[in-house]
């Protein structure tokens, strides 16, 4: 009960932030009425999915300061579970999603249990390694379609059980609900014991341990929650795009995108991931659509890697850090 109250109360935030948040919700709510079926709506849905990933990653990477670069494998596992069960055994979305999320979470738990014996750089490289192993396995594993991926069968009529709708608006609202849930969770999290413990670990691990925080256990817990978020995003991804392959959901590039996005927005702050996604996703999609014809590959990646370098060098707390600084000066 207390947790629910914490999650729903935004009272401790400054008034400007509350207004912005309300505006964001209204914007997301109204958006599909204005743009139904357009490119903008597709971008918006992708933005929401990345918000979900980023909010999850922010837990371990931002609050916890543990650079885990393997979100994509959790996304991929859940997406593959949903797609595979759908294709092979006709299992409805609502059954396969919990299963996929559980698989992603269990993987996070097992991996986190071993990998959190490492610190700092070692941990980051290890997570990259593991996700590359998974990526290789998924590319070479024929049972799940190998490099070709899986295509979900199209149903004849719009079907709630398999999450197939005629209009992207339904997907929009579903993704929006997920993000809203994630934001409420984060709002609870930042005031929770776990949140304080994680931030203590980020600030000074030895000190945190001497205060009686079981750092290993706290990190593993946070990592599992991150896995849940990624898993939900992945399950949604599978039914929304109706097609998945190892390069779109399992790839290291996705993990990197998530981390860089959160870093640009502001790691370790409540709104950071959303700000990051708000900048990067439209930039990515519109630049891609605009430059795709002229044949220059990867300009979008160059722009945001340059942004990341500048931000990492001068303001490691990202755009949110800049906002906070300006606010304090005033």
């Amino acid at each position, binding site marked *: 009960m207390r947790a629910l109250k914490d999650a729903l109360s935004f009272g401790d935030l400054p008034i400007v932030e509350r207004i912005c948040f309300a505006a964001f919700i209204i914007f997301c709510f109204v958006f599909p009425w204005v743009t139904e079926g357009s490119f903008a709506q597709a971008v918006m849905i992708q933005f929401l999915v990345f918000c979900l990933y980023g909010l999850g990653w922010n837990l371990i990477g931002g609050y916890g300061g543990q650079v885990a670069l393997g979100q994509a494998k959790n996304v991929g596992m859940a997406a593959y579970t949903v797609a595979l069960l759908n294709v092979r055994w006709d299992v409805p979305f609502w059954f396969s999603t919990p299963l996929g999320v559980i698989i992603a979470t269990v993987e996070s738990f097992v991996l986190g249990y071993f990998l959190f014996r490492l610190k700092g750089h070692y941990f980051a490289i290890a997570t990259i390694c593991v996700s590359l192993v998974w990526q290789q396995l998924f590319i070479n594993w024929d049972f799940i379609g190998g490099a070709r991926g899986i295509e979900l069968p199209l149903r004849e009529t719009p079907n709630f059980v398999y999450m197939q709708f005629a209009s992207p608006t339904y997907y929009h609202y579903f993704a929006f609900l997920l993000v809203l849930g994630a934001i409420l969770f984060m709002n609870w999290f930042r005031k929770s014991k776990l949140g304080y413990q994680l931030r203590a670990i980020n600030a000074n691990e030895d000190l945190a341990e001497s205060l009686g925080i079981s750092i290993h256990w706290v990190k593993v817990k946070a990592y599992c929650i991150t896995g849940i978020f990624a898993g939900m995003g992945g399950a949604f991804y599978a039914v929304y795009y109706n097609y998945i392959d190892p390069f779109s959901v399992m790839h290291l590039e996705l993990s990197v995108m998530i981390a860089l996005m959160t870093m640009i927005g502001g790691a370790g702050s409540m709104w950071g991931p959303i700000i990051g996604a708000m900048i990067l996703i439209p930039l990515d999609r519109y630049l891609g659509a605009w430059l795709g014809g002229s044949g220059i590959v990867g300009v979008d990646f160059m722009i945001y890697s340059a942004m990341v370098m500048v931000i990492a*060098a001068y303001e490691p707390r990202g755009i949110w850090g800049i906002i906070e600084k300006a606010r304090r000066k005033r």
Partner: protein
Amino acid sequence: MEMFISAVVSGLLMGMLFALVALGLAIIFGVMNIVNFAHGEFLMIGMYAAFLTATGLSIDPLLTLPVSAGLCFVLGVCSYYALVKYLLKGPMLAQLLGTFGLMIFLRYLAMAIFGPDYKTVEHGVLIGKSINWGPIVISYSKLGTAVISVLAFIIIFWIMNKTRLGMALKATALDVEAASYMGIDTEKMRGIAWGLGGASVGIAGALLMNFYYVFPTIGMLFVMIAFAVVALGGFGSIKGAFIAGLLMGLIIDLGGTYVGPQHKFALIYLTYFLVIVFRPQGLFGW
């Protein structure tokens, strides 16, 4: 048996090159505790430099060695002064994602300039020739690469251990503050460490160009091998990097022969994973 021997030989030869790639990473990590994710991209740039000079001037790829070594030295120094210097002041997250950003930037820059095609050098003293020793075939280019790699390794090892510069670098690695009290310009030392790291990987790139193709995303593959080598040898240990490089070459070639070529890179990552889980300090770390 013959398959085994030829896998061992080719593995050892490749291992010497991996050792050289890993050496650069080990120096940088040893001196300032920062992991250079862009290391593989330095290799890629070294390879492109070698490719362009070799085809542009139509000279032997071996002669392009100083060009790519010099270019990568400058690249290393520049990235230290322009980026890493500032990253070191920030938290871990900024350090990691900062060099990660550099890596992605260089990769896609190469993609935009050179396109995603695979490119090779076709003519050269070593290219296309081999020693046939019964059933075992050793290609000249791999042998030459291995020999020059070892030479370069020895030179850098000598610089690190026997010269005043090397001592200053080591002092900086051990304790920055104490080193600066002794009159060592630690900023410069760190810059030089990045330069040396870049140069070693630049040499490796020019050598690799003799028998491998270059493409913009080649960096990821080699940087992961280098991470695995450095982790196996112990972060910051130069001797460890050499032995681990040989071991890694063996693992890749034997794995490619007996497990299947499509899984050999998964094997590298798996090795790395097992090492850090069971012996995080590596073979020669402390």
